[in-house]
């Protein structure tokens, strides 16, 4: 047995066998791009976007250099939690088609390397945010990383169908962290943005889980459709969407977003509700899968639109000021 197999990574040795003659040492073949993939760049970009929205909620001055460095630290912190997630979940990532090509299950990066990378970046990002912005923001970022890596990944994901409901808090924190980085405080407006992402997460992920339930079952993840059934999941999707539509309008109603935001959030909320009703009513494949994927896709557009309007109008107001 090779050293890498003792470290718990059989794929790595297998992948080397074809390219490494016996006399060569086992040194990683990973490219910088493989390490970048560990950081989940698409999730990072969403985190940067929502953290920027939170940051722009303040009406006070924003130093662009400090804001950029803070966003970078928040992005790296989010990436670090992604790396820790990929380290811990390599076994279930390997059996799901969507995740089987990730760097750890595909053998490009050893689990221990992913763990060291994630831990190093976690400490570095939190420390950097503390020094660059303030220690409240750093503490919130540290809690977000802990919540995603430990509470969600290690505990909730494999133990309860409420995994993505509670775990969704990790994805909802960036606007609060962004606002805290800009002001050293937590405001009601940033908590409202937290609430929008938090309530948006269950219908978004359960729509996908309805379609991918067989894969989740094979990986042994207790997603809602696998535990409570598809029909119960459809009901919960509808209930969360009924809650989400008015919460999405709150920034306009509370006066920290314009009437343009109000119109888009009302229209988007109605669209989400219409699709959630369709998901609830259409229960037979292939129509059921089609509307579930429509809801999944529309939910991404909906959230993006809400935050894009907030970012755009806040930036516009700063440029005009």
């Amino acid at each position, binding site marked *: 047995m090779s050293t890498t197999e003792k470290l718990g990574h059989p794929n790595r040795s297998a992948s080397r066998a074809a390219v490494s003659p016996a006399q*060569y040492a*086992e*040194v*990683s073949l990973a490219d910088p791009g493989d390490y970048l993939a560990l950081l989940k760049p698409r999730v990072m970009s969403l985190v940067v976007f929502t953290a920027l929205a939170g940051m722009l909620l303040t009406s006070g001055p924003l*130093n662009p*250099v400090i804001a950029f460095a803070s966003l970078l630290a928040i992005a790296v912190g989010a990436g670090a939690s992604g790396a820790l997630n990929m380290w811990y979940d390599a076994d279930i990532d390997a059996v799901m088609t969507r995740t089987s090509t990730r760097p750890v299950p595909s053998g490009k990066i050893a689990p221990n390397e992913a763990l060291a990378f994630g831990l190093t970046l976690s400490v570095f990002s939190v420390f950097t945010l503390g020094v660059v912005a303030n220690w409240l923001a750093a503490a919130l970022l540290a809690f977000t990383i802990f919540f995603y890596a430990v509470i969600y990944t290690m505990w909730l994901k494999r133990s309860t169908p409420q995994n993505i409901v509670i775990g969704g808090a990790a994805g909802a924190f960036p606007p609060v962290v962004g606002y805290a980085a800009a002001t050293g405080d937590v405001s009601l407006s940033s908590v409202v943005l937290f609430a929008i992402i938090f309530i948006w997460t269950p219908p978004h992920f359960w729509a996908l889980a309805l379609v991918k339930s067989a894969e989740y079952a094979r990986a042994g993840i207790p997603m809602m459709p696998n535990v409570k059934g598809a029909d119960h999941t459809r009901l919960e999707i509808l209930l969360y969407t009924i809650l989400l539509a008015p919460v999405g309008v709150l920034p306009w109603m509370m006066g920290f977003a314009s009437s343009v935001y109000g119109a888009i959030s009302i229209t988007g909320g109605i669209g989400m509700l219409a699709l959630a009703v369709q998901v609830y009513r259409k229960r037979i494949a292939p129509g059921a899968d089609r509307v579930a994927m429509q809801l999944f896709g529309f939910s991404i557009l909906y959230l993006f639109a809400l935050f894009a309007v907030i970012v755009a109008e806040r930036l516009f107001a700063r440029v005009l000021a």
Partner: protein
Amino acid sequence: MKALAVTEPEQTSTVQNGLVLSPEQQRARRRRNIAIGVTVGLLAILFYVVTIAKLGPGMFNRPL
């Protein structure tokens, strides 16, 4: 980057000869080294600019 030991049968010869890297491994290591170097360089620039930004314009306004 951690250099892992070779498989057990070759361990003795490797210890005697040092680690032998294949051309592909050398290229991968070079790419990683360049990425680390560029990242460290950019971080040094970032921390320098952040330091200036945090000190603010008042840094030049001091008694000689």
